[in-house]
């Protein structure tokens, strides 16, 4: 049962990912990406990491993808322009990178299979990624990393303002 649901979610997310890169219209691609992210949230939930699943949907599918859609609409990318603009070099380079990444995943899956077949089917620990574990870890053991995150967010805020303001000429 567990395996069947896992495979279902895995197939759906891979199919969605293929749609992201094959669909012509950028907005459709973005919708497909939202679908992929929701499927990944499903995979998290399947492992019992409900908190992670919820955050995956709230942050990735809910916030980052709104930004993506806004940018796609802001730039008003037309299907035709995208087709023409594509350089041959990027295609070749992209394909090489993709194949290399695929081989890398294949290598690790193979190694995991040879070391011990159960390592891939390792049972999920009882308290895996539960809210208690995450929050106590985040606010005690990894406190410094958490505080540093705020600096990261601060830099992001300032960067966003700088980029959108440009030379300081535009007044909206």
């Amino acid at each position, binding site marked *: 049962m567990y395996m069947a649901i896992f495979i279902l979610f895995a197939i759906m997310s891979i199919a969605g990912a293929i749609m992201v890169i094959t669909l012509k*219209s950028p*907005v*459709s691609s973005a*919708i497909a990406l*939202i679908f992929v992210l929701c499927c990944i*949230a499903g995979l998290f939930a399947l492992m019992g990491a*409900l*908190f992670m699943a*919820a*955050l995956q*949907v*709230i942050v990735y*599918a*809910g*916030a980052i*993808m*709104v930004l993506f*859609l*806004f940018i796609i*609409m802001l730039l008003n990318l037309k299907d035709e322009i995208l087709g023409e603009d594509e350089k041959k070099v990027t295609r070749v380079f992209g394909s090489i990178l993709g194949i290399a990444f695929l081989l890398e995943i294949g290598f690790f899956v193979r190694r995991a299979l040879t070391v011990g077949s159960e390592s891939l089917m390792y049972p999920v620990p009882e308290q895996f990624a539960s*809210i208690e574990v995450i929050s106590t870890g985040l606010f005690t053991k990894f406190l410094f990393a958490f505080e540093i995150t705020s600096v990261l967010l601060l830099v992001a805020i300032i960067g966003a303002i700088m980029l959108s303001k440009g030379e300081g000429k535009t007044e909206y």
Partner: protein
Amino acid sequence: MDLIDIGITVGKVVIIFGALMGMVAYMTLFERRVIAFIQGRIGPNRVGFQGLLQPIADAVKLLFKEDVTPAGANKFLFAIAPMLSFIPTLLTIAVIPVAESSTIFGREVDWIISDINIGILFVLAVTAMEVYGIIIGGWASNSKYPLLGALRASAQMISYEVSLGLALVGLLMVTGTFSMTEIVAQQSSFLQWNIFKQPLGFLLFIIGAFAEVNRIPFDLPEAEAELVGGYNTEFSSMKFAMYFMGEYAAMISISAIMVTLYFGGWQGPILPSPIWFLLKVGAFLFTFVWVRGTLPRFRYDQLMRFGWLVLLPLALFNIFITGVIMVL
């Protein structure tokens, strides 16, 4: 899990989902009658006794309307956009306890579809998805007014979603749990209702809720005077109806969430628990209509300024004050 369990689960979903759909249908009549009453009119009272068959007549009419797709529209996205806005509003009810648990076929039945321990986060996640139906709908129409309406709507929804999420943090600090059932259990008597522990948090939440479901005074996405109909201008027939039903379903589910989080959920003396739940939700739905009949609409710049410069600092202040009081 055996057949009886599955049967009980499906039955529970059918009852709660059916009740929600029924409430969505009759909410339209309720709103029109109450607005008419506020404005000194009569409202629809011809179809059936006191207009009680009006929603059915409306549904039949919309079903037989021609479904027009604009020539320049992205056909697929145009078809799925209304569903994208409708489905999330229906999923919210999954984590809301609607009544006291009872015994059926010798089994304890909790009247909540799924008692997951991250109920509040589930609601926030599903609410975050509601914005896509509107963005995609406005963009896919390939028409100016819907696109403008969609842009405004999405910018408004995401702005107020932040305050909505932050308003809940104060509540979480007090309750220390994400589970809706536990939150209801904590508010067992009148004085323990969370509204008394989080008055400012509740105020922020209800303002955010009005903005999140695009109701007056925050209904700029569909400002008919400037934007024709906003994001749903080009939609007709059942697709148009779906946007409308999505708005009503969102209104009902957010009322149910407010009742559960701040007003003790289904608990109350003498009357049976589902009645109490419906009464409390009904009071909020009446408030939604009442506010619509009373307040004018915000201007867009006022709306954005209010969201970012007033609600957001207030939400952070609320968290700070709650933290200080809890430490003392």
